[in-house]
């Protein structure tokens, strides 16, 4: 059994501490927004989850490029791990957005460009997992996965830019809101600090989870190797 690296144990503690502080800031430090009320507090982790999702898919695309160049199995494990984390966090992003939208837009869902592109992005990466499931041969699976992760990444900038390029009601944090944006607000310094701290915390969560997931992938590989050795 591979012992947990010391650096990972430290990262676990730091990440947990950051998360506790971030939660504290969201609930006790950031002021209540005057128009939206308490539901605005969802914004801090909603955006941070979206950030982690996009960072994950970027990691998967980069891992895909490196895998295609080197052929090292390690990069395939990183790509798969990143996609899995990305799917979980984009799911959080979409569902929390929907919950926020109910009192603010008066609907759970609307086929707005941002919501639509985010959903398509999520489905593209869900299909990545299905594609991998359907390929038996590990090298072929890794190669297809790498190409898919690179091509699928097109959906990430498209989702990010959708609220800036198309007519949308979804507010943006960085840049100018579209005239029809509903639910935008001016961040006070305390809100901005909470937001930036949440982004930092979720970046740590991403690194920590990725490391754990990659270790899991490596362990699965070793089990497969021994299984082959035993059965042959």
């Amino acid at each position: 059994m591979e012992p947990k690296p010391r650096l990972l144990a430290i990262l676990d503690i730091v990440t947990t501490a950051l998360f506790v502080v971030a939660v504290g800031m969201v609930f006790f430090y950031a002021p209540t927004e005057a128009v939206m009320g308490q539901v605005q507090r969802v914004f801090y982790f909603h955006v941070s989850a979206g950030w982690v999702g996009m960072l994950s898919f970027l990691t998967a695309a980069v891992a895909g490029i490196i895998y295609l160049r080197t052929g090292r199995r390690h990069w395939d494990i990183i790509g798969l791990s990143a996609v899995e984390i990305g799917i979980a966090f984009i799911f959080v992003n979409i569902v929390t957005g929907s919950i926020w939208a109910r009192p603010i837009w008066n609907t759970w869902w609307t086929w707005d460009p941002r919501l639509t592109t985010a959903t398509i992005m999520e489905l593209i990466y869900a299909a990545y997992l299905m594609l991998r499931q359907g390929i038996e041969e590990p090298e072929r699976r890794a190669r297809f996965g790498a190409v898919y992760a690179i091509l699928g990444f097109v959906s990430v900038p498209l989702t990010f830019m959708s609220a800036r390029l198309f007519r949308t009601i979804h507010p943006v944090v960085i840049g100018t809101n579209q005239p029809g944006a509903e639910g935008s607000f001016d961040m006070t310094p305390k809100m901005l600090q909470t937001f930036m701290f949440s982004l930092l915390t979720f970046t740590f969560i991403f690194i920590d989870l990725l490391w754990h997931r990659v270790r899991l992938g490596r362990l699965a590989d070793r089990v497969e190797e021994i299984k082959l050795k035993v059965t042959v």
Partner: protein
Amino acid sequence: MMLLQQAPPDTTGYMIAGYVVIFGVMMLYLVSIAVRRRNLERDMEVLKELDKKDS
């Protein structure tokens, strides 16, 4: 002037729902990693035993 200002709407329920989803999914993912790891470690033990018996 203060009397003219409206209190923010009560959207606490939605906030709680949002954070239930956030904490819930994160917790589920952590548990899924831990369970998968435990199962693989068990498999590893069994396979090592079989390998020892074979050799």
